[in-house]
């Protein structure tokens, strides 16, 4: 089973690697490049959201932070792209530490609220600061080589996926995260330090987002607060992970591909109804929570079916924190 999964991952990686050799269509290349970016973002979100059970509703802020850091360092500081990109990742990780320190000590509700508010504050900051160009955004030097960005994205997302796979599925770290998700006090009793581990997971989740943001900025060559710091990055990452299957790596990746494909078709054919897309995103999130708590991947692996018929007795009103009182 494990070997076949590695095989599938390898096949997928190779298929993605040869796509640019098969097509000269730059639109198709662009779509696949962005799809890979979303895979990276959704999988990274799931480190904290799915594995650790702490919902980051400010994922877009870290993406935007990476994009802006890269843009500012390249344009104002004349740094080379690779260095600026790395700096974007580092800054996103540092921001996670700063934001996580007060909020990750508390219950998940505070964290969800704080990250959502943080995203708004960061967007506001980019709007009022001078060196970010304010509402006008920033232009980066055009580097019009779709193949370069395709392979860069492919390499980065592959690295992100493999690193997360090793850390989350094949090391004690992933188990620690899941222990915290299932029972934080129990994890503490076993000698784990939940706050430290949660901050590590937060950093692990935001550094990829920052790096992908940096690549996106250089690739698209124009960023402004609405595009890279708007709500859509967060909204999509959340819906991709929830719809695909929380707490797995393959689920968010599958969710990312499906949701992004849907979005591309939707915006291509129904571009005048773009706000409808929000309704659909929201409905998909809400319905997946109610009907597909384990996501699409749960359906495929049969986990979803086992859990579907819930609460047979009408009196089942127990909040989860009281459930542990029952023997």
């Amino acid at each position, binding site marked *: 089973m494990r070997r076949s999964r590695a095989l599938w991952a390898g096949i997928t990686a190779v298929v993605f690697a040869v796509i640019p050799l098969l097509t000269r269509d730059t639109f198709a290349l662009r779509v696949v490049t962005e799809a890979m970016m979303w895979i990276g973002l959704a999988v990274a979100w799931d480190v904290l959201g799915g594995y650790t059970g702490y919902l980051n509703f400010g994922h877009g802020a870290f993406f935007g932070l990476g994009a802006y850091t890269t843009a500012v360092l390249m344009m104002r500081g004349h740094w080379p792209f690779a260095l600026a990109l790395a700096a974007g990742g580092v800054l996103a990780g540092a921001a996670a530490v700063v934001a996580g320190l007060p909020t990750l000590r508390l219950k*998940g509700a505070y964290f969800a609220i704080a990250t959502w508010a943080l995203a708004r504050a960061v967007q506001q900051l980019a709007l009022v600061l001078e060196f970010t160009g304010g509402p006008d955004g920033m232009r980066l030097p055009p580097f019009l080589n779709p193949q370069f960005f395709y392979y860069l994205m492919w390499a980065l997302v592959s690295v992100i996926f493999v690193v997360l796979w090793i850390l989350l599925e094949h090391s004690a770290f992933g188990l620690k995260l899941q222990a915290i998700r299932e029972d934080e006090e129990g994890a503490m009793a076993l000698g784990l330090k939940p706050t430290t581990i949660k901050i590590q997971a937060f950093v692990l989740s935001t550094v990829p987002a920052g790096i992908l943001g940096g690549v996106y900025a250089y690739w698209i060559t124009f960023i402004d607060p609405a595009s890279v710091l708007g709500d859509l990055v967060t909204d999509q990452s959340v819906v991709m992970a929830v719809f695909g299957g929380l707490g797995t790596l393959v689920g968010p990746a599958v969710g990312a591909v499906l949701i992004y494909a849907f979005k591309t078709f939707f915006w291509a054919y129904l571009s005048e109804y773009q706000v409808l897309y929000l*309704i659909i995103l929201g409905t998909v999130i*809400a319905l997946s*929570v109610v009907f597909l708590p384990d996501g699409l991947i749960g359906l495929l692996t049969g986990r979803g079916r086992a859990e579907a018929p819930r609460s047979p007795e009408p009196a089942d009103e*127990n909040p989860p924190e009281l459930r542990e*009182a029952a023997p």
Partner: protein
Amino acid sequence: MLWQLLPQAVLDGLLIGGVYITVALGFSLAFGVKHIIDFAVGEWIMLGAFLGYYLQGWTGLDPLLLLPVVFAVFTAVGYAIQPVIHRAVSGRRGNPVLMGLVFTFGLMLAIRGAGLTVFGFFSHSIPSVMSARSWFLEAGGLFVTVPAIRLVGFVYAIGITAVLHWVLRHTDFGLAVRALAQNRDAAGLMGINARRISSWVYGIHVGVSAMTGVVIGSIFSISAQMGGDYTILAFFVVVLAGMGYLAGVPWAAFLLGLVQSLFLVYGNPSYTLLAVFAILYLILLVSPRGLFAKGV
């Protein structure tokens, strides 16, 4: 110097802080009882405001007279939605509370999208007879203007808070709500219908928020994008107060109103949100469970 502006700034802050109480009150109640973080709170405010706007256009009545209608309609909506939220939070996932969060997050997106589709991107206002009036006070060389509609908003907020306080403290329903918030199992054993009470609580939350939207519409303006701003206000107030600690809400709301209006007069308005955020961050660092350390 600018100190002559101080009384006006303080008054504005208190009056607007009053409205923030009602922005956060239902939200705090829903969290205290059901442990639901309602990301859609701002969207309920938006929807209520637009119902008020259309009802006013239709009936020609003063928006303040329409408040009970808006309350009734949205209490029914909240009552009807609660069972779905309950289903979302009673799944078998490790942390079902978080699934409720994701659910209301989706709800927020869907309502916002629907609002933008139906209501468009334009701003409106819901003028009341009080909107144009104001009083001018002078004492000891200091002047303040009291806009009538803001005073009405303040009185409305205090009134709602007082009614809610009375209901929670002095009625059987209030007793049941408090019992539920304390211990769901024990409350169930005492014969409290947790499901029905929860539905009422969520209904009241949605109803109060929607009604507040109408008041906001007659003070400021309304648009389909307004929801997020008020959601964040509700978050700020509730986190400052301590999550689920209802008695802290008014003080936190006044503090927020004061900070905002002082910043507007003495600071740079575009940094207001950032200043509020910085204050919130510091408070979370020093006293994670709110100003009074009474949060959950």
